[in-house]
């Protein structure tokens, strides 16, 4: 089975399971007492956010190794991870306001986390624009790697600078030093969703990777 097909199957499996996440979150997970049904979006929002940020770190790591090893596979991976990260950041930025409107009464606020996610999204867009703006593929890969490494180093600074502001955003309830503070059934749904998003990330990246491979073969690069 070719790489593209393998990626396609993983993605299809991920999408089928995503439907399962919806069913489980809506029908088999208790409704949160204060936020009501709006809280359901949490099961999509947080896993997408985790992968949007992880993808940037992976772009940075892939870029570092690409600059030293000059292995084309690492560059293809960084490019794929950046594109998928862009999609996940867009998911975070669209699901967030849907939740924010009923709970905060506003679609958008210049809150710490919203701002940092928006900047992450701009960072991804800049990265993809730079890749598209260079004609020579080898040169483009190296430029993108430099930007990818800078981007990875920028993420903690964005976090620090915006966290010095007060935040309205709910504090983490799973990824925190103490034990997760939500009921077991909600945690199970969330973990299920995180697994599905991981699968989707892998599936999308493999497909994107295979596509750049095909493109390179066709253009004799």
């Amino acid at each position, binding site marked *: 089975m070719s790489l593209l097909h393998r990626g396609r199957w993983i993605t299809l499996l991920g999408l089928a399971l995503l439907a399962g996440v919806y069913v489980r979150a809506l029908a088999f997970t208790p409704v949160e007492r204060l936020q009501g049904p709006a809280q359901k979006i949490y099961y999509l929002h947080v896993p997408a956010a985790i992968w949007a940020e992880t993808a940037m770190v992976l772009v940075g790591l892939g870029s570092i190794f690409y600059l030293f090893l000059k292995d084309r596979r690492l560059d293809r991976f960084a490019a794929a991870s950046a594109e998928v990260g862009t999609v996940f950041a867009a998911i975070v930025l669209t699901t967030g306001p849907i939740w924010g409107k009923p709970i905060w009464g506003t679609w958008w606020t210049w809150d710490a986390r919203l701002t940092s996610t928006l900047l992450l999204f*701009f960072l991804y867009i*800049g990265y993809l624009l730079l890749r598209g*703006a260079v004609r020579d593929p080898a040169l483009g890969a190296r*430029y993108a790697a*430099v930007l990818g490494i*800078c981007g990875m180093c*920028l993420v903690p600074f964005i976090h*620090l600078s915006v966290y*010095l502001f007060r935040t309205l955003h709910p504090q983490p309830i799973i990824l925190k030093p103490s034990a997760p503070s939500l009921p077991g059934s909600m945690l199970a749904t969330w973990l299920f969703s995180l697994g599905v998003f991981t699968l989707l990330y892998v599936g999308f990246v493999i497909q994107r990777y295979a596509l750049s491979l095909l493109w390179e073969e066709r253009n004799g690069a």
Partner: protein
Amino acid sequence: MAELLRQAWAVARKDLLLEFRTRTAIVSAVVFTALVLTVFNFGRDPTAVSTLDLAPTILWVTFTFAAMLALNRAFQLELENQALEGLLVSPLSRTSLYWGKLLANLAFVAVVESVGLPLFVLFFNVPVGRVLLPLVAVIALATVGFVAVGTLFSALVIRTRFAELLLVVLLLPFLVPPLIGAVQVTARLFGDRPLSEAVGYLKLLAAYDIVFVSLASFLFRFTVDE
């Protein structure tokens, strides 16, 4: 280290000499700064928002825009007659080339800022006398950070299409952390708050400078080598 600084100085001196002889870019940048400050004056309602509340924003938006103009120039001028190739075959380490460009850019931006600051005080009647020294220190701290990243990125975009536009798009997300820090510290200085309130932001600015100056010095070689 001494050799590195000597080479860097040679590059910076060449750039500054070129600039001094033509003076087109520096005069344009200074005029641009004055114009942005003027436009700000018409873009606000003095009866609704007091100048002091808006002052840090005006100052930093102006400086950021002016710095980006300067950064576009740095490597653009090396494209003519393949001057960049000449620099690359000369016995000059890549790091000193970067440092030279960084020094020249810093000098350029410093000139623009030293004209912009008095104009800002004049136009908006902000009392800076008491806090002048810390204000200059904050301006220097923030400027080093974003000029360091900007110098690296200007080398990154010269061989791309729409270089000027791309530089701004790539650079602005990187300007946000120093900008936040600088605006917050400036606001506290103008508001006569104790400096201890701004320590977190000052640390952030210093850390940003250290990380990005070293990172850019290291990564620069990958942007120019063939």
